[in-house]
C-alpha cells in the first residue's frame, strides 16, 4: 500500500513538466515550438478594439481590425466569422467591393456559413443597385432553413429588390410567402400600385414651355423660378435686340439658352425624381424599419439579431 502511494507520488512529481527533476528535454522542445504561437495568440488584438471602432462609427477601421483577427485566428470557423464581420463593417463604410471580397473569404473558410453570407451578398448587391443579383441572393436566403425573423427580413428585402426591378407582383408574392403577418409592407405596396409614375419624356416636352416640366412633377416652386428666370432673360433678349445692342444680346442669349435647356433637363429629371421618391417611399414602407445587427459580443461565434 505504502509502495503504491510512493510510486504514484513519484509519477506526479518527476514526470510532470516543472516537476522535481526540472523540465524534461521533450517538454522543453515542445515548449520551444509552441511558445511563439502562444505568445502571438496572446498578443493578438482583442476583439474589443474592432468592436469599439465599429461603435465609434469608424467602420473601415473596425473592418481592418476584424481582418487582422481573421488572419491571426487558427480555426476556420473563427476566421470565417471575423471575415464576415469585416465584410459587414466594409459594407457599413460603403466599400462594397472589398465587402464582397471579405464575404468570399468567409465562405472559403467555412462553407457552412451560407445564410449570413447570402444575407451580406444581397445587401451589397442592393447597395450598388444591382437588383437582379440582390433578388437572387435574398431568394436563396429565403429558401435556406432558418428562424422566422430571418425569413421575414429576407422576404422584405426580396420584395424591395423585385419592386426596384419594376415587378410589384413578384414583390407581393415574396411578402405573401412568409406565412407571417406582413400587412404593413403589403399596404405600402398597395399604395404604390395605386399611384402612377410620371413620364420623363412628357416632362421634357412640357419643359419646352419654361417651368411646366417641373410643374408636371409637382415642383411648383421650381416651376415658378424657372418661369421668372426665363421670362426675364427673354425680355432682356428682346430689349437688347430692339436697341440693336448685339453684344449684350449675345451674352443674354447665352444665359437664356442655359436657363431654357435647364428647364427641359429639369422637366425630365423632376419626373425621374418623382418616380424615384415614390419607389423609395414604398421600399421604406416594405422594410418598415426592419434591420439586422451582428452581435459582436459572441465572436468568434457568429450571431445576428434581426429587428422589426
Amino acid at each position, binding site marked *: 500500500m505504502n509502495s503504491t502511494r510512493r510510486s504514484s507520488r513519484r509519477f506526479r512529481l518527476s514526470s510532470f513538466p516543472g516537476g522535481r527533476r526540472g523540465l524534461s528535454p521533450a517538454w522543453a522542445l515542445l515548449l520551444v515550438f509552441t511558445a511563439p504561437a502562444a505568445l502571438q495568440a496572446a498578443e493578438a488584438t482583442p476583439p474589443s478594439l474592432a468592436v469599439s471602432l465599429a461603435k465609434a462609427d469608424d467602420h473601415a477601421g473596425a473592418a481592418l481590425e476584424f481582418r487582422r483577427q481573421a488572419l491571426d485566428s487558427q480555426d476556420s470557423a473563427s476566421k470565417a466569422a471575423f471575415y464576415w464581420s469585416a465584410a459587414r463593417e466594409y459594407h457599413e463604410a460603403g466599400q462594397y467591393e472589398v465587402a464582397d471580397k471579405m464575404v468570399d473569404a468567409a465562405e472559403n473558410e467555412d462553407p457552412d456559413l451560407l445564410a449570413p453570407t447570402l444575407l451580406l451578398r444581397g445587401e451589397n448587391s442592393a447597395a450598388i443597385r444591382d437588383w437582379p443579383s440582390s433578388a437572387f441572393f435574398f431568394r436563396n436566403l429565403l429558401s435556406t432553413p432558418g428562424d422566422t425573423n430571418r425569413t421575414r427580413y429576407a422576404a422584405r428585402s426580396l420584395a424591395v429588390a423585385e419592386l426596384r426591378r419594376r415587378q410589384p407582383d413578384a414583390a407581393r408574392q415574396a411578402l405573401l410567402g412568409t406565412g407571417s403577418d406582413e400587412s404593413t409592407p403589403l399596404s405600402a405596396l398597395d399604395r404604390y400600385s395605386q399611384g402612377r409614375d410620371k413620364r*420623363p419624356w412628357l416632362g421634357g416636352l412640357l419643359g419646352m414651355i419654361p417651368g411646366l416640366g417641373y410643374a408636371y412633377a409637382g415642383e411648383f*416652386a*421650381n416651376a415658378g*423660378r424657372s418661369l421668372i428666370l426665363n421670362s426675364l432673360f427673354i425680355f432682356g433678349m428682346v430689349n437688347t435686340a430692339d436697341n440693336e445692342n448685339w453684344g449684350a444680346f449675345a451674352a443674354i442669349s447665352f444665359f437664356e439658352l442655359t436657363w431654357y435647356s*435647364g428647364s*427641359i433637363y429639369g422637366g425630365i429629371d423632376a419626373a425621374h425624381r418623382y418616380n424615384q421618391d415614390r419607389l423609395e417611399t414604398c421600399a421604406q414602407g416594405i422594410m418598415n424599419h426592419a434591420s439586422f445587427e451582428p452581435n459582436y459580443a459572441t465572436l468568434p461565434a457568429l450571431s445576428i439579431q434581426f429587428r422589426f
Partner: protein
Amino acid sequence: MSLWQRIPGVLLGILFFFPVPAAHPASLAWELYREGNWPACSIEAARLLASDPADQSAQFLLHACTARQSPGAGACSNLLALAGSSSSSEIRAHAATEAAWALLRNHTPRQAWQPAVQAFLTTNDRETFLQSLAILEHLHRHICRDIAMPPDVERQYLTCEPLLRLVPEALKPPRPDSLARRLGTTPGRLIVAFYRSCIRPAIGSRCSLSPSCSEYFHLSTRKHGLLGIPMLADRLVREPSVVLAARYPLEQDRRTVYHDPVEHHDFWIQSP
C-alpha cells in the same frame, strides 16, 4: 516510460507532420496594397517597420503608398533606390513598377521608361507583370516613341502585347483625353476657373449645397460634357427647394449644407 513522458513526443510528432501555417505578418498590408487602400496600407507597413526596420517588403509598401498618395520627387527617388538595392528580385520589380507609375503621374514620364523595362523583364508576379506591360505600352505609344527598344525587350514585348486585354483598368495608366471629350469639358473648366479666381474671392462661398454649384458644374461637365450646362441651370433653379426640404444635411466648415450630388440627377442617364 510513463504517460506524461510520452505526451510531448507524440505532440512533437503531430507538430512535425501537421505544421500550423501562421499568417505572414505582412499579408494584411499586401492585401490592402492590392485593394488600393493606400492610407490603411501605409499604416500597416509602418507598423511592420516598427517591429522590423530592415523589412524590405514593408519598406516597399510604405514608399509605394506614399507615392500613390502624393507622387512627389522624394517618393519616386525612394522607390528607384529600392528598385536598385533590394536583395529580393521581386521587391526590386515591384519597386520599379511603382516608380514608373509615380514618374508617370509626376509629369516626368520619360524617366519611367527604364524602371518599366526593368520590372517587365524581371518580375514573376502576375499583376506586376501586367501593370509593367501596360505602362510600357503607354510609354511606347504615347510618350517615348523616339526611344528604340532593345531587340530582346522588343521581342518579349511583341510576344506579350496580346495580354494587354487582361490588364484591369485600375492597373492601366490614364489615357490622354480624346478631342471630343476635351471639347466637351474645356468650356466648363474655363468657366469654373474664371468663377473661382475672379468672382468667388469677392462674394465668398455662398452655395448651401454640397458639392457647391461650381464644383457640381465641374463634375457634371467632366462626366457628361456639354450636358453639364443644363444640369447647372437645373441645380440653380432647384437650390432653394433642396435647402427647404433639408433631406440630407451635412456639417461643413461649421455650417449646415445639404448633400445634392451629381449622381442624384444623372442616375437615369447611366441606367440601361
